[in-house]
């Protein structure tokens, strides 16, 4: 270069220059509360395979100019984490962070970084080094706020099946005499937990004490298990009385991440789940009974995965910003 400023690291790689902005630490986000946790099992159901991974949603806010890049620093590295929602009002950003399990203890810390040109600097803080672009006004580096130093990164994606049982849950039984399930049969046989369902990415710079990561959660999956039951009551005096039932368990998952020593894992965790049971019958049969129906629970989604493409993650050492 003919003019300006450029710093290269020990490997000759550019880390500061006058054309591209560095990211600088603004602050940790403030945790404002949690939702109390839940979904360790299916609501309104208690029989076979009634277990889920559970989850807690913590809410955080941070005020800053510019759009922050946020790192999650787990305080329990055995749990899965992800930012599942972010919104902004004026200069205040709000983040919802999903964590596996139901304990509200050990919420993570959120470290927020913005461009050099957006960092807040106290009026009396007048020493240090700044680097500007050739326009003379856009700051690319400011030593008064800690610059981001990364320790690794890569590209990750989630496995297509979030459920621990082999294969995706599906439908068994029919609403006719060939059904393998009797009327009103309801006994889940699919393990909807996600303990073993993740893609692991080797990264020797990850430790389970100070490493933090930035990787927005985009992937989402909905999967359901359906059991259809049937019986018929026949009579010479009355029309056949047909009995039908449908039991359905559904889970909406969100893509989540875990840091292990030497690995970055991309997996799944329950966000919400439900159980719906419907039973109905026609009139007739031996006793000439009337028709009727009962329904409990809802089925608000249809099974599918979305946003399954790869996303970029970066990691850094949180202890530099404490």
């Amino acid at each position, binding site marked *: 270069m003919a003019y300006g400023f450029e*710093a*290269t*690291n*020990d*490997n000759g*790689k*550019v*880390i*500061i*220059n006058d*054309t*591209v*902005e*560095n*990211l600088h630490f603004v602050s940790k986000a403030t945790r404002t509360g949690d939702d109390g946790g839940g979904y360790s099992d299916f609501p309104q159901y208690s029989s076979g395979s009634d277990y889920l991974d559970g989850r807690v949603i913590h809410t955080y806010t941070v005020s800053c100019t*510019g*759009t922050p*890049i946020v790192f999650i620093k787990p305080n329990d590295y055995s749990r899965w984490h992800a930012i*599942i*929602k*972010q*919104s*902004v009002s004026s200069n205040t950003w709000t983040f*919802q962070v*999903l964590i596996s399990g139901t304990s509200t203890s050990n919420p993570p810390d959120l470290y927020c970084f913005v*461009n050099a040109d957006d960092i807040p600097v106290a009026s009396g*803080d007048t020493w*240090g*080094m700044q680097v500007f672009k050739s326009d003379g006004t856009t700051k*690319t580096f400011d*030593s008064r706020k*800690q*610059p*981001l*130093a*990364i*320790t690794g*990164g890569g*590209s990750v994606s989630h496995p297509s099946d979030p459920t621990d049982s082999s294969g995706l849950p599906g439908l068994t039984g029919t609403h006719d005499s060939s059904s393998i399930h009797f009327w009103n049969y309801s006994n889940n046989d699919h393990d909807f937990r996600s303990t073993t369902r993740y893609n692991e990415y080797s990264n020797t710079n990850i430790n389970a004490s100070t490493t933090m990561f*930035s*990787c*927005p959660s*985009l992937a*989402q999956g*909905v999967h359901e298990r359906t059991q259809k039951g049937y019986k018929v009551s026949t009579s010479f005096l009355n029309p056949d009385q047909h009995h039908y039932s449908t039991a359905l368990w559904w889970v*909406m998952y*969100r893509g989540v991440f875990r840091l292990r020593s030497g690995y970055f894992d991309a997996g799944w965790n329950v*966000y*919400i789940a439900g159980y719906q049971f419907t039973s109905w019958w026609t009139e007739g049969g031996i006793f000439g009974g009337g028709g009727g129906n009962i329904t409990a629970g809802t089925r608000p*989604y*249809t099974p*599918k995965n*979305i*946003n399954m*493409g790869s*996303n*970029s993650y*970066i990691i850094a050492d949180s202890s*530099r910003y404490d």
Partner: protein
Amino acid sequence: MSYGLSIFKADGSLGFSTADITWQTLDQFTVAANASVSNTYSVPTGFEIIAQRQLVDVPPNSQEDYAPNVTVSGSTVSVAPQSGLSSSQCIVHVLTRDP
């Protein structure tokens, strides 16, 4: 260290130096719902570019919030809805580094 650049915090501890590696911000932009964007950047030859997507104001229980696809080809970053699908508003962070 005997050469290079060290930058210290106010408490005198080392904050950043030429022993470090970093990603720098090439651009940040918001892509409106269903919109397509393609930006070409001027970066030194050989610099690596990645893009992070963040959906904004998306309810986490909505099943139809699709993130747009992002492709990086050389120094061009292109954002477009997934084929046949509507996409939600999305923030794209374009980061670069000397690999």
